[in-house]
């Protein structure tokens, strides 16, 4: 059969941000979809998002409630969501209760009523909520074969009447086996939630969707005042931008450091700034982002450990008017502190901020804050999350600086328990050393992929204007020990000290 003769299946938007991407474009029209999961996972909310997204006075939707959540409660709570447009109720979306039909006439009565209502209204969309309650209510009077027969007849009837239908049902994973509904359904969306220490993680899986390629795996979702929002497992594309191979250097705003890095950070690199507390990692990050805006490169500042207001206020103390840049739309300061984030949610927030301002530079301050903001269940996947986050940004030519607090060690950079330096193209190390009984700060460019860089330790100061790089501790040896000393004549020449 040629391409032109194939049945064309339109994909309907679900009204759930992120879900269409996971489904492979949306729900197939005239399909029979099961929304399954345990109580409280958002099944009804998802079904109503779909209905309110699609139903119009010309293409109406019927929402059948059966024995599950009482209709009065369902309406009371669902209308709190922003998608619930009460103007559409009765005009485009009609709610109908099938409890009496189920109790009095069983499955046959329910089927008859649905058929009758669809015929009378010419509805384009149908939701049956809760399908499982219907099955339970009729279990005493219906044999399993009746149920299969009922589901098949319902599915065939709704499809032939060109109805896109959703069946909402409370199911556990064990219910999948040998269940007629799961076999007959064209698409199955499985919602789950699991407590994890003090947080709750919600996940959605597209178990199947006939005729189109869905995004496999579990995708986290959140229920907000706007309903469900799914955060698809990314995908290294940021905001629809194309992958590019950038060229040039991004100056850091610290002249001495640019010089050490061979003219600045190669555009599209990921730079890791490591060092103990108080060494100025955030100061450098601030200078980098401010310098970018000054050069017409918008930025996104992702702050995990303190409120952006405090962060911006501190930057102003150094003469960087970040608040003004935010007001002008050249900089976005994101505050991601909730302790139940998923990596994909974090990535989504950053991606959206990057898209909004057209960012060329991103600062993640700090990595340990990022890890803490994640729900415990995701911390095991932290390295993978970082890999995807950094890859997504640098892949489209965005230069990324990530800060990381680390104990003084030049031998390796560890983020317990995993080595993460592989994520960085370039590694800049800040540290303290003791010189002649005084504490001084030094910086070294430890690595730069594919680029020449300084091999020196350079002293630096944090001044009222930010970081200023000084000399290279000329004449001192043992700098890596943290307590260098002035080289003696014997050390330098290998000869005995000449007499004075």
């Amino acid at each position, binding site marked *: 059969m040629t391409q032109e003769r194939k049945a064309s299946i339109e994909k309907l938007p679900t009204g759930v941000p992120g879900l269409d991407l996971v489904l492979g474009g949306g729900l197939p029209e005239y399909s029979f979809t099961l929304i399954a999961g345990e109580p409280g996972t958002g099944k009804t909310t998802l079904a109503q998002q779909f209905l309110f997204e699609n139903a119009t006075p010309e293409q109406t939707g019927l929402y059948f*409630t059966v024995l599950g959540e*009482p*209709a*009065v409660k369902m*309406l*009371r709570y669902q*209308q709190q969501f922003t998608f619930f447009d*009460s103007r559409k*109720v*009765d005009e485009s979306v009609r*709610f*109908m*209760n099938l*409890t*009496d039909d189920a109790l009095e006439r069983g499955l046959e009565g329910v089927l008859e009523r649905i058929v009758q209502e669809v015929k009378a209204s010419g509805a384009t969309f149908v939701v049956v909520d809760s399908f499982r309650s219907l099955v339970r209510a009729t279990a005493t009077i219906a044999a399993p074969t009746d149920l299969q027969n009922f589901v098949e007849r319902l599915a065939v009837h709704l499809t032939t009447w060109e109805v896109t239908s959703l069946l909402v049902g409370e199911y556990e994973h064990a219910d999948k086996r040998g269940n007629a509904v799961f076999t007959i359904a064209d698409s199955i969306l499985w919602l789950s939630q699991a407590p994890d220490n003090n947080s709750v993680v919600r996940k959605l899986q597209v178990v199947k969707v006939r005729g189109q390629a869905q995004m496999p795996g579990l995708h986290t979702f959140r229920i907000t005042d706007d309903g469900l929002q799914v955060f698809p497992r990314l995908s290294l594309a940021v905001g629809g931008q194309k992958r590019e191979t950038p060229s040039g250097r991004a100056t850091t705003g610290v002249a001495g450091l640019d010089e050490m890095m061979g003219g600045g950070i190669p555009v599209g690199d990921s730079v890791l700034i490591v060092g103990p507390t108080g060494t100025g990692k955030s100061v450098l990050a601030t200078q980098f982002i401010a310098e970018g805006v000054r050069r017409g490169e918008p930025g996104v500042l992702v702050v995990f450990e303190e409120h952006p207001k405090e962060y911006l206020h501190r930057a102003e103390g150094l003469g960087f008017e970040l608040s003004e840049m935010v007001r002008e739309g050249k900089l976005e300061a994101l505050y991601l502190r909730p302790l139940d984030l998923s990596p994909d949610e974090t990535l989504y927030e950053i991606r959206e901020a990057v898209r909004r301002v057209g960012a060329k530079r991103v600062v993640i301050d700090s990595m340990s804050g990022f890890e803490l903001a994640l729900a415990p269940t995701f911390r095991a996947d932290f390295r993978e999350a970082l890999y995807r986050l950094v890859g997504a940004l640098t892949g489209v030519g965005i230069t990324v600086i990530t800060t990381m607090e680390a104990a003084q060690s030049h031998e390796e950079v560890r983020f317990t328990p995993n080595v993460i330096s592989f994520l960085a193209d370039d590694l800049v190390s800040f540290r303290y050393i003791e010189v002649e009984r005084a504490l001084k700060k030094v910086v070294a460019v430890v690595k730069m992929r594919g680029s020449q860089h300084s091999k020196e330790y350079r002293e630096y100061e944090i001044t009222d204007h930010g970081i200023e790089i000084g000399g290279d501790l000329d004449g001192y040896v043992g700098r890596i020990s943290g307590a260098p000393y002035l080289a003696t004549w014997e050390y330098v020449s290998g000869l005995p000290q000449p007499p004075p």
Partner: protein
Amino acid sequence: MFHSSPEPRDLAQRLVLGEAGDAAGPAATAVAVETVCCTLGNDLKRILGSGGISSLLTRALHLAQRDEPLLEGVRVTAGPEGCFTGLADALEACTDEEARVTGSSVVAHLLALLVTLLGEDLGLRPVRKLWPQVASSAMEIDE
């Protein structure tokens, strides 16, 4: 609280008066109250089911009985013959005005419950649909 505000009482009395039409006396008021409640119930049954409607009517009657002890003997029924039993008997000895205020109290609490549970937009939508003139005149006065 919508329950204690004058709007539902005023709207309820308008609905009852409207249903009674030219008929006067406590018996006519009782019929009018039943008609309003049953009409509302039948319309809402499509969405809320007969169980939901029965619960709402029972609660509305319970609240009305607290305000109007005369209604103590009234009961909610679930049959095609009406929503209540004993309403006509309860209002029998009242003056026209007393019967109207007492009987309308059940309707007022039913309306207030609908607004509390479903919000004014959805809760009063059946009233606007079934008695558009009464609803619009009541709203004009409110405005």
